[in-house]
C-alpha cells in the first residue's frame, strides 16, 4: 500500500502502467499499431490498384525494394538505442558499392575477393567512426555528418563522376538472383519448425512464472501466426520467381541482429547505455568498446547494402545511397526507436521499413508522381511518432 502513491504518480507522469514491462515491451504497442497501419495500407493499395499491388510479382519487387533499407535499419536501430545516430550510412553505402564495382571493372577482381574487400573497407570505416566517437568523444552526429559529406566526395573522386559498370555476372547474383523454389521451401520449412519449437520452449519456461492473460494470448498468437506468415511468404514468392537473394540477406541479418539486440549481454548493455549512460557506467558496463562495436557494425552493414545495390544496378553509380540515411532513420523511428535513446526494437524497425516501402511501391504502381512519395513519407513519420505520444499520454 505504501508504494501505491509513488507508483500512481509515476504512472500519471511517465505514461507507463504501474506494472509496465521492460524497455522493449513498450514498443509492442507500437508494433501492433504499425501492423494495423501496414495492413490498412495494403488494403487501400489493393483496392486502389485493383489487386495489382498484392500480385506475387509486385510483392516480390516490394520486398526487394525494402531490402537495402531493411539491412541498414537493423544496425541503425541499435545505434539509436545507444543514444547515438549515424548520418553517414547513405554516402558510405554509395562509396562502398562504388568500390565493389571499381574492384571488378578496373581491377578485374573476382566476386568473392571483391565482396571481402568491400566488407573489410566498411569495417575499417566503422572502426574509424567508432574510435573517434567512443574514444575521442566527438559526438556521433558530427562525426557521421562529416562522413556523409566526405564519402560522397570520395565516391565522386574515385569514379571521376562516371558510372562504373558492368560488374561480374556472379556478383549480380547478390542483387538479382532468387532462391530456387525447392530451396526456398526447404529453408522456410526449417525456419517455421524452429519458430514453433522455440515458442513451445518459451511456453514451457514461462509456465513457471505464468504471464498475465494478455501476454499469454500474445504468446500463442506469435507462436502460430509467425510460422504461418513465414510459410505464406515463401509460397507467394515462389509464385513469381522464388525468394529474392537480397531478401534472404536482409532476413538473415534481421535474425542475427535481433538475437544480438534481445538475447545477448552486448544488446542488454546497449539498451542500458541508451537508457542511462552514467548508471550503466557505474554498474560496470564498459561503454566505449560497446559504442565502438556499434559503429563497426554499421560500417559492415553499409558495405552489405552497398554490395546489394551495386549488384542490383549492375553498376556503381555516383548517386547511390543519396539521402538513404533518412529512410533508414525514419524506418527505425516509425518502428518505435526514440532518438533520446534506450528504446526501440529490430523487428519494429523492419516493420517501419516495410510500411514505408509499401507506400512507395503502391504509389508507384498507381503511377502517382514521385514527389508524393516523399511527402507521404514525411507525414507518416510524424504521424507514427504522434500516435506514440498519444498512447503515452492516455496511459
Amino acid at each position, binding site marked *: 500500500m505504501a508504494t501505491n502513491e509513488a507508483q500512481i504518480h509515476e504512472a500519471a507522469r511517465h505514461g507507463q502502467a504501474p*506494472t*509496465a514491462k521492460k524497455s522493449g515491451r513498450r514498443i509492442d504497442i507500437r508494433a501492433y499499431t504499425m501492423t494495423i497501419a501496414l495492413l490498412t495500407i495494403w488494403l487501400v493499395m489493393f483496392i486502389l490498384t485493383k489487386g495489382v499491388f498484392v500480385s506475387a510479382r509486385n510483392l516480390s519487387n516490394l520486398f526487394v525494394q525494402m531490402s537495402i533499407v531493411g539491412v541498414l535499419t537493423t544496425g541503425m536501430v541499435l545505434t539509436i538505442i545507444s543514444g547515438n545516430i549515424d548520418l553517414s550510412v547513405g554516402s558510405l553505402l554509395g562509396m562502398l558499392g562504388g568500390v565493389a564495382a571499381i574492384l571488378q571493372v578496373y581491377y578485374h577482381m573476382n566476386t568473392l575477393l571483391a565482396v571481402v574487400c568491400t566488407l573489410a573497407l566498411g569495417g575499417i570505416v566503422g572502426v574509424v567512426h567508432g574510435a573517434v566517437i567512443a574514444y575521442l568523444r566527438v559526438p556521433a552526429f558530427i562525426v557521421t555528418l562529416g562522413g556523409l559529406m566526405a564519402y560522397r566526395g570520395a565516391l565522386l573522386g574515385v569514379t571521376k563522376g562516371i558510372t562504373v559498370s558492368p560488374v561480374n555476372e556472379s556478383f549480380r547474383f547478390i542483387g538479382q538472383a532468387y532462391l530456387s523454389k525447392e530451396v526456398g521451401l526447404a529453408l522456410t520449412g526449417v525456419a517455421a519448425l524452429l519458430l514453433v519449437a522455440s515458442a513451445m520452449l518459451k511456453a514451457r519456461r514461462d509456465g513457471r512464472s505464468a504471464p498475465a492473460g494478455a501476454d499469454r494470448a500474445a504468446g500463442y498468437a506469435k507462436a502460430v501466426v509467425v510460422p504461418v506468415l513465414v510459410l505464406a511468404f515463401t509460397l507467394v514468392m515462389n509464385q513469381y520467381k522464388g525468394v529474392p537473394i537480397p531478401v534472404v540477406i536482409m532476413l538473415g541479418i534481421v535474425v542475427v541482429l535481433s538475437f544480438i539486440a534481445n*538475447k545477448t*549481454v552486448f544488446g542488454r548493455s546497449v539498451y542500458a547505455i541508451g537508457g542511462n549512460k552514467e548508471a550503466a557506467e557505474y554498474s560496470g*558496463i564498459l561503454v566505449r568498446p560497446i559504442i565502438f562495436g556499434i559503429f563497426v557494425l554499421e560500417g559492415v552493414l553499409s558495405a552489405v547494402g552497398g554490395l546489394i545495390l551495386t549488384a542490383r544496378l549492375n553498376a556503381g553509380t555516383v548517386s547511390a545511397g543519396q539521402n538513404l540515411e533518412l529512410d533508414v532513420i525514419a524506418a527505425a523511428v516509425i518502428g518505435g526507436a526514440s532518438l533520446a535513446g534506450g528504446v526501440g526494437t529490430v523487428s519494429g524497425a523492419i516493420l517501419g521499413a516495410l510500411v514505408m516501402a509499401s507506400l512507395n511501391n503502391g504509389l508507384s504502381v498507381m503511377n502517382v508522381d514521385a514527389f508524393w512519395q516523399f511527402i507521404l513519407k514525411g507525414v507518416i513519420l510524424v504521424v507514427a511518432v504522434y500516435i506514440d505520444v498519444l498512447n503515452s499520454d492516455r496511459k
Partner: protein
Amino acid sequence: MSEVLLEVRNITKRFPGVVALDDVSLSIRRGEIHGLCGENGAGKSTLIKILSGIYPQGTYEGSLRFEGQEFTPRRVVDSERTGISTIFQELSLFPKLTVGENLFIGDWPRKNGVVDHALIAQEARRLLAEVGLAVPPDTVVENLGIGHQQLVEIAKAVRRKAKLLILDEPTSALSEMETENLLRMLAEMKAKGLTCIYISHKLEEVRRIADTISVLRDGRFIESRPAPEFSIQDLICAMVGREMKNVYPRVDQVRKDLVLKVHDWSVKKSRHNPAKLVDRVSFDVYAGEILGLAGLMGSGRTELAESLFGLHPDLCSGSMELKGAPVSFRNPAEAIQAGFAYLPEDRKRHGVVLNMGIAENVTLASLKALYGSILNQGAEEEAANRSIVSLKIKAGGHRAAVSSLSGGNQQKVVIGKWLLTKPSVLVLDEVTRGVDVGAKFEIYKIINELVSQGLAVVLISSELPELIGLCGRILVMHEGRLKGEFSKAGVSQEEIMAAAMA
C-alpha cells in the same frame, strides 16, 4: 488568536485503482511552520501537488480556502499568484542557465525594453546572501552541487515573496551547515510573517523547526499536534501505525579479517587542476563491521569512494589492497570483479535505469558473471525474484518498471544489484536518502545481516544519528582529509560535527 491561512477541506483524490487522498482535512495557521510527516505513499506529495496547482481544480473532490477565500487553482501560476510557492524535492532549475537567470526566469526586469542584466546581478547577489550561498550570480547552475542548487531554489521562492512556502524534503541533500542555515532562515522569515509547510523524513528536524505537526498515513489524515507534544516515538507510531522500538536495529558487530586497506589515497580535481579533493587518506576496513564515513558536503567522501571504485582512474594516487592483494582499478568493471561494490549517492542519475524493469536493473552489474555472453531469462527471473523476496521490494512483479517504484523500493533494487555481484566490500553512499521510515528500517536490517555474514560495509552518511546508531567505527572527513576516527561507544553527534567542521 491566529487566523487560519489555508484550510484543506475533505480532499479526496483518486487515481485509477487507488485512492491517494481520502477525505483529508487540515488547517494551516498564519505565521506557523507546519510540519507534514508520513511514509512514502502516505499522500503528502499528492496534497502538495493539489496545493500548488499541479492537480488543478476539478481533478479532486473537496475544497480549499486560502485567507478565507475559496481557492480553486487551475494552473500552477494561479497558486503562485495567490502566494503559494512550492519547492519540490526534484529541483526545477535550468542547468545550463546561470544562477541569476534562474532566479528571474519568466520575470525579467527590463530597462528600455531590454533585459536589465545589471539589475539581475545586483538582485541575485542580495538574494543569494540572504540564503547564505556565496557563489557569483553568473555561475552556471549545473556546475553547482545538489546542495547549492537547492539553495538557489529557495532564493527563488524568497524572491517571489511567498505567503505560504511549501518545502518538500528541503534538506535531504544539504550538509549540516546548510541545513542550519536554512532552518535559521525559515525562523527569520517566520518572524516576518511567512507561513510554511515543511515536509521531511528527518523527524528530529521537523520537531525542531515546526510549531504544529500533521501526520498522513495511507492517504488519510491521522492527527495534528503541537510539535512539543509530538515525541519522535509518537510520530513514528502515527506514521507507521505500529510501535517501532528501535529505529536502529541493534546488532553486535564482530570484526573479522582485514578486507580493504587504503593508503595515502589522493584525488585531484581534474586533469588540469591539481587541487586535492581527497588528501592522503588512509584507513582500513574489516569484514563483519560497518565503518561509518561522516563529513559535510564537499568533504570528499563521494570522491573518495568513486575513485576507489575505479571511476576516475587518471585523477587518483595512492595504494589500495583488497583481501591482501594490491589492486588498482581502471574502471568499475574491474572493481566489481575484484569484489568491490559501490552504491552511488545519486540514485536517479547513477543508480537505476528508470525505463528498465526490476529484473534488468538488478542484473545490470553482473551481466558477464550471470550470463557469459548470451542472456538467460530463467537465471534473470530467479535472480530478480530472489532479490525482491530477500529485500522485501514492494512491486508488481520482476518486470515492473523501476520508475514506478517508490524511492525506498528503488533503492532496494540498487542494493539488490550490488549484492548480486557478491562483493567483499560494499560502500553505501547516502543509502537512505529519500527513503521513508519503514523502508529505512528494513535497509538497516539488511545491512546488519550482510555484515554478520562477513561482508565489510562502508556507510557514507550525512545523518549523524544513523551513523552513531549503526556503525562500529566512524571516520570523519573534512575538506579532503581524514580528521578523526571515533568508536561507537559513547561518541556524540556534537563530537562528530566538530571534527567535520574543522
